[in-house]
């Protein structure tokens, strides 16, 4: 097919070569129908390119314009819950203190956190998890027969399975990667050597949190809540009073929010698995 001669690009400066490689990461994510990161877009010119690429990509595959039926149903549930519980969403219960974890033994330690620990009965926050949670009974046992209760932070137990979501190498200390299972969207984070899974859904109104490596937090783009890598609100007023401010913010976040949902995590070989609900 190379009947028309393609002009050879002139020699690239090293920074241009870097830009091309970096931007390729944006395109790879986009063309895989994944979520591209603003980190791979350097400036306004590239942002224009990114937008052009997004429009091209959407136009090229008309089927992709159809929403996923499961998504439509999940959002309906979320809205119904928010509609019914809008008062409780606006005044969420206070953040409960977490029991102190034993000291880590090895370099990597896995928290025995629970499947779907929900503070305020799911409310708007559960997002992708909501469907899974609503079809599960409370108080069931894990497939191996052991009860899978959380440490009292409110929970949903039920049937599920271990989904491989990342490799350990993907999450060096201080790193985080997004994952998505049929029932759950979240991050695998490495909090100074401790690998943990956190929901990517803000417990306020259900917006998707973004990882900020500089602040080691998950930031909500909607109203500015920040959650630390343990899943607790990092910039809330109470914490602000106790610790004298949050470096990532000029102001305290006004509302107390429940912690993020923390599914159980295990590591086998090089794989990180997250316990996720059957949908």
């Amino acid at each position, binding site marked *: *097919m*190379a009947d*028309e001669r*393609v*002009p*050879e*690009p002139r020699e*690239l400066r090293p920074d241009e070569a870097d*830009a*091309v*490689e970096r931007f*390729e990461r944006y395109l790879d*994510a*986009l*063309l895989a*129908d*994944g*979520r*591209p990161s*603003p980190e791979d*877009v350097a400036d*306004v*010119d590239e*942002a*224009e*390119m*990114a*937008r*052009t*690429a997004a*429009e*091209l*990509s*959407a*136009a*090229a595959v*008309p089927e*992709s*314009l159809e*929403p*996923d039926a499961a*998504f*439509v149903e999940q*959002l*309906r549930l*979320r*809205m*119904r819950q*928010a*509609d019914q519980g*809008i008062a409780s969403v606006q005044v969420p219960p206070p953040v409960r203190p977490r029991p102190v974890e034993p000291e880590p033994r090895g370099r990597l330690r896995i928290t025995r956190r629970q499947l779907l620990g929900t503070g305020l009965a799911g409310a*708007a926050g559960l*997002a992708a998890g909501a469907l899974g949670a609503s079809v599960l009974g409370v108080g069931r046992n894990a497939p191996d027969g052991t009860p899978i209760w959380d440490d009292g932070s409110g929970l949903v137990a039920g049937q599920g399975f271990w989904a491989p979501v990342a490799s350990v190498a993907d999450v060096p200390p201080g790193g985080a990667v997004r994952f*998505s299972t049929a029932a759950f969207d979240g991050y695998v984070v490495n909090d100074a050597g401790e690998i943990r899974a956190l929901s990517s859904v803000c417990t306020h109104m*259900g*917006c*998707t949190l973004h990882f900020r490596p500089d602040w080691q937090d998950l930031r909500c*783009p*909607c*109203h500015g809540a920040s959650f630390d890598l343990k899943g607790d609100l990092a910039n809330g007023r109470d914490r602000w009073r106790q610790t004298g401010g949050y470096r990532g913010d000029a102001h305290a976040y006004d509302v107390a929010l429940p912690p993020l949902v923390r599914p159980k995590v295990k590591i086998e070989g090089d794989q990180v698995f997250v316990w996720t609900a059957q949908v």
Partner: protein
Amino acid sequence: MTAARGRFEEIYDAHVVPIYRFIYARVGNRPDAEDLTAQVFMRAVEQLDTERDEGQIVSWLYRVSQNAIADHWRAFYRLPLVGTEQVAPGWEPAAVEPSGAAAEADAPDADRSHIRVQSLLHRLPAHYARVLELRFLQRLSVAETADEMGITRGNAKVLQYRALRKAALLGEADG
């Protein structure tokens, strides 16, 4: 209460698919399209007055969607977020578009963007149009694109980068 909720779900059922398509066409990927669609309807639960007439409701939904899309891209342009709650504090009748214009955004979105893409490709130099066609329309990988065009993988990436830059400039000129 029950009646109002029923009405709300009616609105959701009627508009969730067109709103999703509208957003997808502008952000180009499923995870972001789902997030933004969710933001629009969660905002609607808080703010939308379901007693308004259909045209005003449609206008409201598209306006909030446009704001959500704009905020999405602000992150890429490194601009401060405005936040949908500030842009769309509620009903501002003067700012609401005529319902016809908004409703038109509904259905033929896919067609219109397809035509735009074709006209864009036609105005690019042939090798630029070709690399974008292979990568975006035929969904080939960089390596496959390079093979198809008889160039190296590195050159295919560079070509694609420049083609997008040129396309973005043409697109800007279009408005």
